[in-house]
């Protein structure tokens, strides 16, 4: 295949960016999208130019490092697929492909296609955990967890923290990411003692960094792991309740 790439290049966080055009010849349909970029970079380096910086690591869709806007779609045209698992057979000979970084104020551009998603870590710091100091854990089977609960928690916990939900949102909202973690932990019996504090702190930290959710629903189809919008409803419900519950009574059933 012969492709034309229009790629966002930006030398550093404060620098002005620009689109540059590259011809990508000899692309095999069995290559992954990132291998196609590897090849373009190899040619740039051999020609004495600086390669395109992009984030990637596991290349099996689980680490959440990669994330490109491909023709205006987060992670490109194939549903439920992170950029690293997208293959060139999804494109046709002669195509022009526009490649951009995640566009969101809360994810400042570091260089070219690399963005800083540190704001996600700030949300996890603010309660995205269960306080269980090492050594203090009770026997694992002491607390049965209904299978449906465990499965729902796992569905939410499958989030890879890539940021596609934020990039796809017209408001740059961080709701789907935050809700996935709130739901994972707030559904489980082990997460109950910190349930109200967790949702309150995480939501309020999220709002320091991200835009507001106005129910566009663009995040769900962009998510490579199929995280459901239902989690946002659960988070909103718990957040509302967190403002009304008398937490001193939380030990009573």
């Amino acid at each position, binding site marked *: 295949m012969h492709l034309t790439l229009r790629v966002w290049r930006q030398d550093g966080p404060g620098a002005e960016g620009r689109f540059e055009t590259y011809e990508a010849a000899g692309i*095999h349909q069995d290559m992954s999208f990132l291998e196609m970029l*590897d090849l373009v970079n*190899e040619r740039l380096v051999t020609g004495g130019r600086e390669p395109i910086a992009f984030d990637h*690591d*596991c*290349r099996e869709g689980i680490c959440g490092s990669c994330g490109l806007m491909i023709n205006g779609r987060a992670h490109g045209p194939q549903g439920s697929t992170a950029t690293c*698992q997208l293959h060139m057979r999804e494109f046709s000979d002669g195509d022009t492909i526009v490649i951009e970084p995640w566009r969101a104020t809360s994810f400042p551009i570091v260089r070219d296609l690399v963005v800083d998603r540190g704001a996600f870590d700030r949300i996890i*710091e603010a309660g995205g955990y269960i306080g269980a*100091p090492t050594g203090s854990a009770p026997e694992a089977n002491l607390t049965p967890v209904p299978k449906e609960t465990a499965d729902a928690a796992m569905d939410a916990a499958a989030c890879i923290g890539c940021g596609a939900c934020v990039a796809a949102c017209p408001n740059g909202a961080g709701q789907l990411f935050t809700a996935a973690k709130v739901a994972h932990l707030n559904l489980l019996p082990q997460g109950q003692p910190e349930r109200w504090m967790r949702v309150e702190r995480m939501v309020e930290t999220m709002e320091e960094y991200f835009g507001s959710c106005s129910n566009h629903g663009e995040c769900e189809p962009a998510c490579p792991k199929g995280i459901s919008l239902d989690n946002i409803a659960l988070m909103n419900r718990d957040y509302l309740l967190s403002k009304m519950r008398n937490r001193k009574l939380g030990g009573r059933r």
Partner: protein
Amino acid sequence: MVDGDLRMLDARTPSGAINERWDNHRTSISLVSPANKRHFTIIVVGTGLAGASAAATLAELGYRVKAYTFHDSARRAHSIAAQGGINAAKNYPNDGDSIHRLFYDTVKGGDYRSRESNVYRLAQLSVEIIDQCTAQGVPFAREYGGLLANRSFGGAQVSRTFYARGQTGQQLLLGAYQAMMRQVDRGTVELHTQTEMLDVVVKDGRAVGIVTRDLVSGEIASHAGHAVLLATGGYSNVFYLSTNAMKSNVTAVWRAHRKGALFANPCYTQIHPTCIPASDEFQSKLTLMSESLRNDGRIWVPVRAGDARPPDDIGEPDRDYYLERRYPAFGNLVPRDVASRAAKVEVDRGKGVGPLANGVYLDFKEALRRLGQDTVRERYGNLFDMYHRITGENPYQTPMRIYPAMHYTMGGLWVDYNLMTTIPGLYALGEANFSDHGANRLGASALMQGLADGYFVVPYTLGDYLAPQLGEALVPSNDPAFVETERQVADQTDRYLSVGGSRSVDWFHRELGKVLWEHCGMERSAEGLHRAISDIDSLKEEFDRDLRVPGTSSTLNQSLEKAGRVDDFLQLARLMCVDALHREESCGGHFRVEHQTDDGEARRDDTNFSYVAAWGWADGQEPVLRQEQLAFEYVKPTQRSYK
């Protein structure tokens, strides 16, 4: 024979009955009191399972922790990619499991090349790991009654593997990451992201800190600590193509080795039999398909070499189900090392399948007929989808093509029972050390070891080193030891930029991978290894002369980062070949063609090689061998057989 230092290494394992050793050790080593822990600063490099769990636990105990990762977030470490599960001797299924049985299986699976005391401790701690992770909210699979579910894995006759769908590593890592972020929130862990460790600082024979490079600004900086913990993973990427993440590397471990830490058993590498074969020259990594597929898939190649007909046109008489033929007792479920080598034999005979003739078939036609598509989908649906996405072929209709790939490295920094390297104050945890898996690791044991080291071993053993240092100040960063190391790191960085040659870093990495895979991969021979050493020497010489790294050192420069990593891989690859050449036996993942039985199975030499080979860096000279003798008091070595 290689020149060696004749003093045996002392692992300082406690004495007594094996089931009492860890308890005795814990009660006899020194402690640091709760009020004094805050006077100690601990550096943790790497925030995967071992690093994040250690950082969280040490901070909970009251130590001041500084943690470093080169990723943009600690949640991205490669531990996240582990699929299958984590072993623990809980015996929930009531099928006869015990700590002793897990210990026995792990020593045997390691082909009698691991340290009994460490493995026993690992089996003991496995039980606590499941409790800990469950309390953190790791969503392990459960039965309808709400209790935890188990499944079986290779190399065991019991069901002891806990799992979270096909994402067990992800969920365990997120648990450890979240525990660490809780400490970041409390101000007890100072987390440095996008910061790569480029050297260990040693003063008066002890590790006193590290020198790092900020990957965004390029700034080189010193960080002092009373102890340094390396939890930086394995070195499979020395082969270029492996199942490891693209950035996984040996740099932290290798630079520590160059500062005096011995490197143990570098030639013990694990090749996983079920990966998707490479499709072209620009293949960047290989994707693993869970070994659970071998429960229902049948592996075959055409009887006739060069038979290029589509699989459906090849009738039963023209197919060779070679594992079922050679190993009737275990069939398609032989251990990883045996299955991998058998696939190589067939492909080398010209029977490989696919466009590049570089795979074997894993066929589900019989399973689909027997179980129906719905059951197959329920068991393996996500794997089938992943295969379809990557290859464009539908495994419900046409057999999968698989081939072995580099997956895990059992070798690593030599550590004693306390997980301390030969540099006092420098520790190695998880895949970065060598200690628990011998010459072959069993499935679902890597997660277990990483978390045991981080949650339950090093938090205790560190006190033994620190207690006598109470009251000692950190070495200041203007100390000549730091200044000199910073200068060396800066010089090295500048050197990569100034070569001005014509070849990219990736080119050297690919070439190195080809040499190593050919001669130090699934099969090794003296002739091939000699050739590999000479080829690697030439490649390293060319690297120093003809490398091209564009850009500068004061920005994000991914080529520059990689130059340092590939430079270290070139040096490590040579050591792997030296180690493989000296080990005149076959064991686990190390198969020497000269040492096999008449029917092509591995032949160990317990008389001469029942030891850990720990290599010392000799600055350009041939590496120096030291040995740790292995004693098997509880598991008597036998020849493994799967026929």
